[in-house]
Every structure is written in structure tokens, then in C-alpha cells.
């Protein structure tokens, strides 16, 4: 019985908005950024203004990972064996920590409505937010990870493998986190629900990420693991923004 709003298409000669090079219609090209890059730049600038909050996931990662040697004991053999798992689990939890706030602020201050009304497809909004999230949280984890490799006495090839898997895996976490953040938008206990929703989806990345490092440690090739992680990354990069966009539409209604 409910009929959606029908928007009559306009006459064909008015083509859709020009992109990229066609920006001159709306002002000088020097200052007209594409909305997509403008959104990423804004999120990075906001993170730079709130450095303490932005660096919280890395701080959490650092503290959590360095607690393990204290708790488990300083046996080099034991530490080396559990290092990939520890680093990966800590990276996963650090990503989850920050992703709960991905859309909450934009939702609260009305920016999200503006993003959806900007004419930029919601999929691009989701993609830009995920990229910005990865740049703010995933990239610092990648920088910090080798230090923990040394702390756990990992071999150099194993540290290399850890970096590759984190480089492939942390974007997966950002993409999946975006879906969860959009789905739980406006809910009172959204943070907890988000972790329950998203953590199970992150398990494949965790298994293949930690598994690759384990394979290198035991002298095997990790190529299969890399390929599977790459496939996971491509799948989530294609599907997660679509799901996020749909969830955003629902939560702003």
C-alpha cells in the first residue's frame, strides 16, 4: 500500500553532474575537490585535531600486545610461537575499538544527512569513510607491528609476512566495521552489538593472517594465505560499501 516517492526523470539533454574535470562549472578548479576526496580529507583533518582520540587504537594495541610477555612468561620459544596470533588479535580488537564511532558523530550532528544528500552515491560515502578509517587506525598499526615482531623475537621473514597480512587484513576490518557501524547507528547499546555482529565476520581474516605468519615460521610458503586474504579483501571492498550504504539509508529514515 505504500508507494515510494517517484521522482520523474528529467529531460535527457541534462546530463548527470560532470565529474572530476568538469568541476569548472562550480568554481575554480584549484579549490574544487571531488566530494569523495573532500570527505576523506575532512576525516583526516578531524583525526589530526583530536590526536589523542585518533591514536587510542594504536595505544591499545601497544599496551595489549606488550602485556602478553608479562602474563605468559618470557620463554622465547613460547612467545615466538604465539606472536602472530597475539599481534593479529590485538590489531583486530584495536580496529573494533575505533570503528564504533565511525558514523555516530556524523549521525548526531546532521552531517550524515548532508553526505547522503550531496549527490555522491552512498556507496562512495561508505568507501571514503572506510578509507579514512583505515588511514587513521590501520596504517599506524602497520607501523607499530614490526616493533612487536622484534619484541616477540620473530624472525625477519616472519615479520615481513606479518606486515603483508596486516596490510591486506586491516582494510578488511575497516570495511566490515563500517557495515556494523552503519547497522547499529542510533542504537543505545550499539557498541556492544556492533562487536557481536562484526567479530565473527572478521574471523577468516584472523585465521589466514595469523596462519600465514605461522607457515613462514615453520618454513612453509604463505602464498595460499596471501591469496585468500587478498580474495577476502577484494570481496569485502566490493560488498561492504554496498551493505553500508543500504544500512545508512535505513538508519537515517
Amino acid at each position, binding site marked *: 500500500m505504500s508507494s*515510494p516517492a*517517484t*521522482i520523474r526523470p*528529467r529531460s535527457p539533454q541534462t546530463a548527470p*553532474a560532470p565529474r572530476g574535470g568538469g568541476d569548472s562549472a*562550480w568554481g575554480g578548479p584549484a579549490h574544487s575537490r571531488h566530494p569523495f576526496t573532500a570527505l576523506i580529507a575532512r576525516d583526516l583533518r578531524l583525526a589530526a585535531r583530536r590526536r589523542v582520540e585518533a591514536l587510542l587504537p594504536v595505544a591499545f594495541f601497544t599496551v595489549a600486545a606488550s602485556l602478553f610477555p608479562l602474563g605468559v612468561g618470557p620463554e622465547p620459544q613460547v612467545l615466538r610461537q604465539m606472536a602472530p596470533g597475539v599481534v593479529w588479535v590485538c590489531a583486530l580488537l584495536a580496529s573494533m575499538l575505533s570503528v564504533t564511532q565511525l558514523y555516530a*558523530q556524523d549521525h548526531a550532528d546532521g552531517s550524515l*544527512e548532508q553526505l547522503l544528500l550531496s*549527490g555522491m552515491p552512498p556507496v562512495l560515502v561508505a568507501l571514503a569513510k572506510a578509507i579514512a578509517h583505515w588511514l587513521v587506525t590501520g596504517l599506524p598499526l602497520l607501523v607499530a607491528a614490526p616493533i612487536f615482531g622484534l619484541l616477540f623475537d620473530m624472525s625477519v621473514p616472519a615479520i615481513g609476512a606479518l606486515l603483508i597480512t596486516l596490510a591486506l587484513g586491516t582494510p578488511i576490518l575497516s570495511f566490515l566495521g563500517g557495515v556494523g557501524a552503519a547497522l547499529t547507528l542510533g542504537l543505545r547499546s550499539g557498541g556492544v552489538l556492533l562487536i557481536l555482529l562484526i567479530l565473527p565476520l572478521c574471523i577468516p581474516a584472523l585465521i589466514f593472517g595469523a596462519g600465514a605468519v605461522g607457515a613462514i615460521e615453520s618454513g612453509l610458503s604463505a602464498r595460499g594465505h596471501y591469496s585468500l586474504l587478498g580474495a577476502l579483501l577484494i570481496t569485502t571492498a566490493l560488498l561492504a560499501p554496498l551493505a553500508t550504504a543500504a544500512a545508512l539509508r535505513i538508519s537515517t529514515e
Partner: protein
Amino acid sequence: MTAHALGCRRGDRLLFTGFELEIHPGQVIWVRGANGRGKTSLLRLLAGLASPEQGEIKWASTLNQAAADTPRRLVYIGHSNALKEDLTALESLQFMAQLHRRPASPQALEDALRRCGMHGHRHAPVRTLSQGQRRRVALARLCLETEPLLWVLDEPFDALDIQGVETLDGLLGGHAQRGGSVVLTSHLALTLSNPQPIVVSLDNAPA
């Protein structure tokens, strides 16, 4: 643009049904109604942020020649200002302009802020601004508009002082003269005299 037999549901409650609205170029429409009658919901329907429970919204091609899809034929400024606490007034306006593909040259942005009386605060972070000043920064976006689009403004006069109201009246008048149209809500009596706002009341709409 016409809205035909529009119905809106909020949770279990039907806010209004059979609501008819027609907007022509050069009109300023003032939506009135008691609190909770669905003014904001109606504006969100018109902006395309929500889909109606019943009825339909149609766009006539004469209203706007420049834009091809819904988001680009209207400017929506909601009850919240959509400003980021940590950005400065200028940065906020610049982001809005870039996001909506409006002129974002420093000159255009500064002129817009100057017109809204916020030029002196352009480098102040939004969190240091008062409620009225934030509203001015949010409304400065309207100074960048050159096309006769539909403006959908939710309580634009909220928190503005007399001078701010005058500026906004000027903007609305100029926009209507260009052939643009405005739908707005306000709980205060409008001081706008040119064009005379058309009053649409939600209180009479059957619920």
C-alpha cells in the same frame, strides 16, 4: 514540485495523511503546525531523506533546469547545523561547498561568511561559537547558491538575532527573485515581506 496525498508514519503513529502541497518557482512556503505534528518529517520527505508512507512526490521539470537528480535540485538545512566541533567556520563551509559541488574558492567562502556576519570568526573552531553563530555558519551555505533550486530549511531562524534574521530574509528574497523556491518551518512569525510567504498548516491535515 508537487506532493500528492502524502502520508507520514512515525513509529506506530500516523502523523498526517492526504497532505497536498504544490511548490512553484518564486514561492516561499511556511509550514506551520504544533509541536509533534510532523513539520520536520514533512521536510525530510521533501528532501528525499525518508520515503512517504503513502502518496508521492513529483518534480516538475520547470522548477529547476540545472540539476538532474534529487539531491542536486535542493538544498536541505536541517535542525542540526551539520558542523564539526573541531573544524573552523571557514573549513566547515568549505567542506559543505565541496561536498555539494558549489563554488569553494577562498574568495567565495569569505564573501559568504562576511555576508552572514561571521567573517571575523572564520578561523575560530566551531566549538567556541555560540548557537546563533553556528546557525549563521550553517546558513552561509545559502550565500553560495546561484541556481534557482528548492531550499528546504528546518527552523532556519532558530537562534538567530535580529540582524541574522534580516540577512536570511534578504537571502530568501533574493532566491525567490531568481525563481527559486523555499519551504521552511518557523515557530516565530516571519518578517519576510517580499515575497509574501504562503502559509501551509499541518494542523488541519487529517491524521
